[in-house]
């Protein structure tokens, strides 16, 4: 059980803002932290790691990491942290990067085996691809068998195929090590796949908190399909208007009557929904 109750004044891009978080996390949970950029996700992660100061208290199991009197240094918290930019030590080989954390050769070779990096263990980090480097970073974070694993957008710099692969590895390692994991992520499919709880921050406060399904699935009422997207273009042809909407990486066309299209402005966020009675799922 982890009890977080912290607050801190932040000077964000949109002026001053109060980060005010009261959060309880069960042991072994996989929590995704979502929210717009500048909402305080990374700061919260850094406060948990002891890299930034804040007022309030953090209690993990029966150990107090921070209260009115004490504030444990990052060195004494025994956590794992995966940075977005990997942050490997360029002067050490892959294996040395892992052994730097703990001199446990058996664990290092096990982690490298799970992530398929064993043949690369004597290479230097700069000779590896982004996906490989992030795997090393993940392995390194697990070397001290952390109770708490923190990940700051670990996969955002990688291509979609590599992401999916690493998501499976992250989930497998999370289960194997029984860590409590908190991951900052923007990708709904990633969150859905990995997290059993989603906490959404807005302007430094928790705005939504629930299971991935509750928070992320946006269908409501009798609508069966809803996609959010950006209106890219409105093409008028005869009596109808065709709206081009970007949903994720995909462009779709939606036919509108002219009266429907009158209130729309190119560039705005729109929702495409349909009452689909028999949706067809075809394999790629």
């Amino acid at each position: 059980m982890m009890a977080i109750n912290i607050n801190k004044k932040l000077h964000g891009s949109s002026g001053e803002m109060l980060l005010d978080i009261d959060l309880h996390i069960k042991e072994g949970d996989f929590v995704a932290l979502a929210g717009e950029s500048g909402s305080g996700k990374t700061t919260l992660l850094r406060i948990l790691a002891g890299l930034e100061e804040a007022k309030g208290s953090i209690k993990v199991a029966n150990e107090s990491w921070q209260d009115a009197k004490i504030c444990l240094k990052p060195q004494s918290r025994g956590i794992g942290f995966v940075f977005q930019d990997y942050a490997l030590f360029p002067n050490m080989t892959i294996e040395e990067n892992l052994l730097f954390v703990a001199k446990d050769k058996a664990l290092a070779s096990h982690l490298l085996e799970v992530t398929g990096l064993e043949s690369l263990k004597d290479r230097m980090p700069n000779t590896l691809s982004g996906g490989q480097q992030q795997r090393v970073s993940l392995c390194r974070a697990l070397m001290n068998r952390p109770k708490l694993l923190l990940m700051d957008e670990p996969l955002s710099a990688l291509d979609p195929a590599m992401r999916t692969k690493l998501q499976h590895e992250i989930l497998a390692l999370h289960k194997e090590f029984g860590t409590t994991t908190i991951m900052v992520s923007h990708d709904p499919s990633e969150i859905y796949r990995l997290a059993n709880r989603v906490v959404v921050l807005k302007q430094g406060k928790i705005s939504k908190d629930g299971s991935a399904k509750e928070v992320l699935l946006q269908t409501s009422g009798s609508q069966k399909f809803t996609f959010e997207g950006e209106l890219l273009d409105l093409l008028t042809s005869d009596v109808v208007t065709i709206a081009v909407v970007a949903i994720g990486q995909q462009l779709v066309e939606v036919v509108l009557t002219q009266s429907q299209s009158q209130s729309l402005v190119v560039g705005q966020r729109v929702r495409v929904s349909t009452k689909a009675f028999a949706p067809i799922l075809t394999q790629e």
Partner: protein
Amino acid sequence: MLEALMHLEFEPFVLSFKLAGITTLILFALSLPLSWYLSQSKSKSKPFLEALTALPIVLPPSVLGFYILVVLSHNSPVGAFFDEYFGIKMVFNFTGLVVASCFYSLPFMVQPLQGGFESLNKNMLEASYIAGKSKLETIFRVALPNMKPALLTALIITFAHTVGEFGVVLMVGGSIEGETKVASVAIYEMVEIMDYTTAHLYSGIMVIISFLVLLGVYLFNHSQNKKIGKF
């Protein structure tokens, strides 16, 4: 010319390099914590400290030499203290030269080190803290090995700059044979007594050594940058 070279007194060079070597070692030990503090600090006193550190670059060596003389002479409290308790005289001897050189060359050690520390990926240092490593261990095992060009620049430039000093040395040390008469002072004396042959030889040797040292630094930095793929 060849005969003059055969009979050339090399003691001034030995003295110059001994002085530079000792100064570099002392300054490295002193500058490491200072430059680390400056690179990590967001304190309001930082610009003040930075300006103070950089002062020897802009001050005329005579000003620096004058103050060092005033503070270290046996008439001053500091000089009297060292003389009385340790039996060390601080001016017109080699010890005085070392003290003066440490002030004179301080920015040449601090600034490259500070720049090197500042250029490091902050997340990388934090990853080391999270791995349970202290600041000291992080500096020696993560920070310094990843800023070798800056480290080498700091060491070599400090060494070379100390070899090349003249004004401060002359004021604080004078020109005592085998004690404070370093190469630059020896050249000045040769010119004064119009012994141009020796002056030529001394100066030529200085130019060649200095060039080779700098060439070595630049070659090393070039190969390092290639190795870590920075450029």
